[in-house]
């Protein structure tokens, strides 16, 4: 698993939303096969960090390379499950069609989706156990079911890296467990970055933890004690900066 090829390289990145500095001097390398958990209090910049990796927003300072390229160029190899997808639940679209959007970049420019795209979408729907809802109206699903569909959409493009922003926030316990197992299985081939507040999950599945609170501190999981997490959530970050292993 430790092939050491860097999938994401973030160097000294600062980011600000309208002059308010949200992330400061972030340096982080994610290697192929990593399963990185990102934790941090609300508003600490976790979602912002994922968006930077996707090239949806651009750093004020510093550089970001994804799969050796600018983030915009590597996007199509990344699956993303947003925390709050800006989705209108009245939109007339079926579950299947939502998942197919994950194939848009790979399907032909003109006309409809190919048979192979549909087959892959069905496979992804089965993987997250929502296949029987494939022809339902997306807006009528429950919050957890929607999240699973968005998960299938992220998987359907056969990504090299998955970025998940609290993907199990409204998913019930049983399916949550299954999704964690699924991620663990996928991790054999895919690098995974997961934002979660579920520290129990983090310590069981993840092999590195990044604590974000304007700045970022990264530790291998075995070094993550309650103190480290607590420091990230409430204490001043500079106190634990010496533990950073980058």
């Amino acid at each position, binding site marked *: 698993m430790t092939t050491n090829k860097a999938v994401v390289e973030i160097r000294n990145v600062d980011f600000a939303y309208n002059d308010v500095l949200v992330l400061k001097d972030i340096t982080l390398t994610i290697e192929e096969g990593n399963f990185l958990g990102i934790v941090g209090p609300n508003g600490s910049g976790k979602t912002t960090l994922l968006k930077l990796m996707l090239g949806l927003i651009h750093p004020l300072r510093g550089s970001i390379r994804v799969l050796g390229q600018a983030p915009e160029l590597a996007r199509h190899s990344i699956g993303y499950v*947003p925390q709050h997808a800006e989705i209108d639940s009245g939109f007339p*679209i079926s579950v299947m069609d939502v998942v197919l*959007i*994950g194939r848009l*970049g790979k399907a032909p420019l*003109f*006309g*409809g989706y190919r048979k192979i795209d549909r087959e892959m979408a069905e496979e992804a729907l089965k993987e997250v156990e929502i296949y029987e809802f494939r022809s339902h109206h997306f807006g009528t699903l429950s919050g957890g079911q929607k999240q699973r569909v968005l998960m299938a959409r992220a998987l359907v493009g056969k990504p090299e890296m998955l970025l998940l922003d609290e993907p199990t926030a409204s998913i019930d316990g049983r399916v949550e467990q299954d999704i964690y197992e699924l991620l663990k299985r996928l991790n054999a081939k895919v690098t995974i970055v997961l934002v979660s507040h579920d520290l129990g999950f983090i310590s069981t599945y993840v092999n590195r933890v990044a604590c974000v609170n304007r700045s970022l501190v990264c530790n291998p999981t075995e070094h993550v004690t309650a103190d480290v997490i607590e420091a990230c959530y409430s204490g001043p970050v500079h106190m634990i900066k010496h533990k950073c292993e980058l």
Partner: protein
Amino acid sequence: MFEFIHVLQSQDFMQNALTVGLLASVACGVMGTYVVVRRIVFISGGISHTVLGGMGAAYYYGFNPIHGAFVVAIIAALLIGFVSLRYHQHEDTLIGALWAVGMAVGILFIYKTPGYNVDLMSYLFGNILMVGRESVKFVACLDLLIISIVLLLYKRFLAVCFDEEYTRLQGIGVMSTYLLLLCLIAITVVMLIQVVGIILVIALLTLPAATARYFAPSLGSMMILASILGAVFTTSGLIVSYEQNLPSGATIIVIAGMAYIVATVLRGLVSRFRSYDKK
């Protein structure tokens, strides 16, 4: 009714009016669906009202007002589309300004054009009975253009309307796709201006689609249903306005509006009845 059929059989103007109404309904159903699901009614209103500036200028310089409308509609679509993607927070203020300035410029040009102009009212409120054979051909060509582009880019338009961010992540040019969509809406607006006029265009663009939305499970079926509803509204509006000697544009819109209200009430009753059933 018999009188209407008699006139339809014997008079060119009525045949033209009916054909333009039916042809415009197709574009109106297809593009109106996008306007409704993407919630860009205000943007479309901006485009359609700005068009008066183009019509006025063309009128003043002696060109065909519809050509002026066409050019300005495309420019307005590109400008408004750019503004709405780039300066999202100030979108409504900027569009509102363009809307007002466009109309004001049109009125100034029309005022300065020598001679009394009867046409002003027909630009504002439309007059489908004055549509000529040439306009029928023009509208048919635009229909063909719109339908072929929508067929080719259906999945892309769907993705952009449903989830802009994820579409961008697929490496799709969201800006260009969105601008193209707005240009097609602009073309539809120009087409519909001939049927109901600038002021009522937004109603005809959105009411059939909004009604269809209650019954259609997918974007494609919503387009087809909206087109059929549009055809029913324009045809029945034409008949009623002829029989009762009323302005056609306003009659069409009143019928469409009533159908929408009835559908909304029915829809509400049905869902209430269902939830009552479950108890």
